[in-house]
């Protein structure tokens, strides 16, 4: 059932990024975290230089702007799970390749449900 996938994390707060990494390690130990990036610019550069990941887990507020800018600056080929502290961007997040929209602190059950949804859609 568990597919092997490459996951990119966009998150500017270190502890929140660590939390996602830790939870992913528990629910999908065979998935690989290929990068943790703090800004839109780094994400755009990374996506230009590397093969597209299978899934991006994306915080909405990054160090240099809203993560929606990534979609405007480059072609995002994979699905996205958004994370945010509050739901004010939920409607906007719908417009992009979003699988799910998770509220912080991200709960293990919710993250697992979102990842399962992603796996089923592939």
């Amino acid at each position, binding site marked *: 059932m568990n597919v092997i996938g490459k996951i990119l994390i966009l998150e*500017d*707060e*270190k*502890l*929140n990024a*660590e*939390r996602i990494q*830790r939870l992913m390690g528990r629910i999908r130990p065979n998935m690989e975290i290929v990068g943790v990036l*703090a*800004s*839109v*610019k780094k994400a755009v550069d990374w996506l230009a230089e590397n093969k597209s990941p299978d899934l991006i887990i994306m915080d909405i507020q990054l*160090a*240099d*702007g*809203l993560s929606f*800018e990534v979609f405007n*600056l480059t072609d995002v080929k994979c699905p996205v799970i958004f994370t945010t*502290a*509050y739901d004010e961007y939920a409607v906007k997040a719908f417009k992009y390749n979003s699988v799910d929209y998770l*509220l*912080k*602190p*991200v709960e293990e059950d919710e993250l697992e449900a979102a990842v399962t949804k992603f796996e089923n859609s592939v």
Partner: protein
Amino acid sequence: MDTREDLANVMEKSKAKSVLLIAFTFMGSYATLVIVYPYSFWRDYFSMSTSKLIIDVLVNLLFCVAIFRLSIFIDKILNKKISWMVHPIKRLLIQTIFQILGALFLIICLSYLYYKFGDLINTQTYHIGLRELLYTVISIILWALMISALNTGDFLLKNWKTATLKAAEYKIKAAENKQLVAEIELQALKLQLDPHFVFNNLSVLSELILKDQRLGYEYTENFTKVYRYLLINSKKKLVTLSEELKFLDAYLFLIKNRMGGGSIFQVNIDESKLDMLIPPVTLQLFIENALKFNRTEEENPLIVRIYSNDNDELVVFNTRLPLIKKPYSTGIGLKNIITRYALLCDRKPSVEETDEAFIVKVPLIKR
């Protein structure tokens, strides 16, 4: 509006009013004379030579101007001594007496002039009876009183108008202030319930407890301090700078542990200013804005300086590192601080924005 222009306008108006009143008196005087004097008088009158007629008319005009001036003068003097608002009856009596005396004085002067120089300017060809003379005197006095009444009426009307306008202005101002206070309270309430703030911190906290219990403990303590400060103080009008700085310490602790090295804060406040006052949560707003509008990358951190200057101001300076796209903002937070100050003191906050830096200065208020 230009006040000089206003003043010129008012003077123009009062001049026009004077001319109108004099013309009114002048015509009125003839109207009264027509009633008082018999036909024979007018027949004789118009049989005078034109030059004499003109002189007579001019003398009459001069007399009207004199009566008018005297009336205005008495009014002006009494306005200073006895107010219509405080002693209306006393004022009415005194004004009437003075007007009558003034008019009599003028009549005596005029009669004297006629007596002395009458032959030079006007050979009296007509005879005036005692009755007519009495009528004339009475009508002149009545005219003097009428001018006085008109003038007073105008004065009272103007006063009433200004008073009404002032009352209306005051009402509007009071309503505006009430609305402002409500807005400020609403903003404070929003701040208390800001879900971003709460959940971001809780998210970090829960991870921190797993990673570093000691730090997790400290984070909880500081989060408590910050949240309690927001709840208790955001409704107050003013707090001491030292209270706000204690809050700032706890707030910056949270930010540093949440955001890492993306921002650097330098606080340098002169100790003598610690007892001065500022509206609560002012610093939090400026820092929140600095973080909201600028990049916070570890490679190129945002620098925020918070210091006091010699003009009794608190300064928040931050370098400018614009985001990829300018975030949407109503600017309500900063506007609110400025309006809050407008209600508190005469000094205003100032905002300075250059390509390199954003600087806000807020006055520190003396106890």
